């Protein structure tokens, strides 16, 4: 099994590879059509978050996710996938729009974390993240989240509260980057490999711990497989009454102890 062939830290490195598929690759492979929307209607458009409507097997789906960029120029432009408050507020806006038109929501998570910067803090990073989490908790339409690469800290969680959470086999998802974790606990960021080994951040660990519903194998048929899963799962979730959906989502997060 692949799970045993790579250490947790090797997976962290794999999840961070620049050549790894990014949000546009998934959008192109999964949707027949996609229209991107911009802006938070408050201050600016955060390019580290992509949002819009994709058509999945005839069904419009609101798609929101992080964008890291694939070369230095893109990475700088998209701030390495580190989102500012405006990005989370754009996400909130698009989720509210999805509710209004009864569209399900797909989120794709791949971020080193929320941006730790002066402007981000001045514009209320905490408030934007808590608002996004709250919105995903009370979203009246079905939601699916896929952790595709790196999912670090509250910056990832803000987009990862959903009815179903899936994860690619080489993706990682954790409370903080292993470097940040090692820095906080041992004042030594270089112990990141040791930290990664203890954090239970791999897809298999997180599935065992009950945070992930499905681990998706990264083979040639990856996007084809995701597409099929999405069509079938959105169909099933669409049959659940809103009240019941919200009740189940509450229970999903309520039980974590």
């Amino acid at each position, binding site marked *: 099994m692949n799970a045993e062939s790579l250490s947790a830290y090797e997976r962290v490195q794999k999840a961070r590879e620049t050549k790894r598929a990014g949000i546009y690759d998934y959008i192109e492979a999964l949707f027949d059509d996609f229209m991107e929307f911009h802006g938070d209607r408050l201050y600016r458009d955060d390019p580290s978050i992509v949002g819009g409507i994709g058509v999945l097997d005839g069904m419009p789906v609101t798609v929101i996710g992080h964008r890291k960029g694939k070369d230095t120029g893109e990475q700088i432009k998209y701030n390495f996938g580190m989102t500012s408050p405006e990005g989370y507020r754009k996400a909130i806006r698009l989720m509210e729009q999805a509710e209004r038109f009864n569209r399900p929501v797909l989120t794709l998570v791949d971020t080193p974390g*929320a*941006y*730790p*910067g*002066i402007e*981000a*803090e*001045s*514009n*209320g*990073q*905490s*408030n934007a*993240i*808590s*608002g996004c*989490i*709250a919105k995903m*908790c*009370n979203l009246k339409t079905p939601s699916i989240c896929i952790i595709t690469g790196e999912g670090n*800290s*509250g910056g990832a*969680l*803000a987009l990862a*509260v959903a009815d179903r959470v899936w994860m690619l086999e080489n993706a990682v*998802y*954790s*409370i*903080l980057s292993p470097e*940040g*974790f090692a820095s*906080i*606990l041992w004042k030594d960021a270089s112990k990141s490999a040791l930290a990664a080994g*203890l*954090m*239970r*951040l791999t897809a298999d660990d*997180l599935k065992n*711990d009950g*945070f992930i519903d499905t681990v998706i194998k990264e083979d040639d048929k990856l996007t084809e497989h995701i597409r099929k899963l999405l069509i079938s799962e959105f169909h099933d979730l669409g049959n659940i009454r809103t009240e019941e959906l919200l009740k189940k989502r*509450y229970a999903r*997060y*309520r039980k*974590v*102890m």
Partner: protein
Amino acid sequence: MSINDIFSKRRRGWAKLEKARKPAKKKQLRIAHKRIEQLCDDKSFKEMFTRLRTADPIKFPGYMEKIAELDQNGNATEAFVAGTAKIHRIKVAIGVSDPGFMMGSMGTVVGEKIALLAEYAAKKRLPLIIFSASGGARMQEGMFSLMQMVKTAQAVERYRAAGGLFISCLTHPTTGGVSASYATLGDIILAEPGALIGFAGPRVIEQTIGEKLPEGFQRSEFLLEHGMIDMIVEQAAMRETIYKLLKLHEGGMFCER
């Protein structure tokens, strides 16, 4: 009776009640309990959910030893004290972080107490007051900690949706997973002067941007200026300020004597 008469009568009432309050006990109390004593009517606090203990969910090396050290007599209330109390005879659900216990960090026990408190407050129709002082999510519980952000956010959101008044008080320091979840979801957000409040810690920001942070950055006054909090309240004035806020909501669904 004129509106002025009503207010002066009320002020006299407050003064009388204030006089009637006995001074706080001299005994050295834990920080959270001490704050509750200062804030609430004498002997009105009834602590709840004291039996919760962490299950060491990711079996983090040394974690249980650390907990045992902090909980030598077996009755430490973890990093959050919750219960009911009265403020000038108005019954409230109140919770206070204890920064003396692992920096007030939010692990499974803290998250569970906050969720239980919000659910209790909703059921009993009590105003909800939470004082936060926390470094954020508790590293030693990994993803289980991160998920407490969702658990607490959805609990306070449900409470608010049911008509409850949530007053969130940010004290020094309130950062990370606490500032980015329930703590910034208050109907009214108060902060104590000079408190450090933000998502990313100042050290992380400095390392990321490679420059020194401006004086007063991420302090309460800075947040007030940037529109993130409602008001700054001195600790000595907190009891009366909260009482006034409760009075303003009296007659509302959740604020009755």
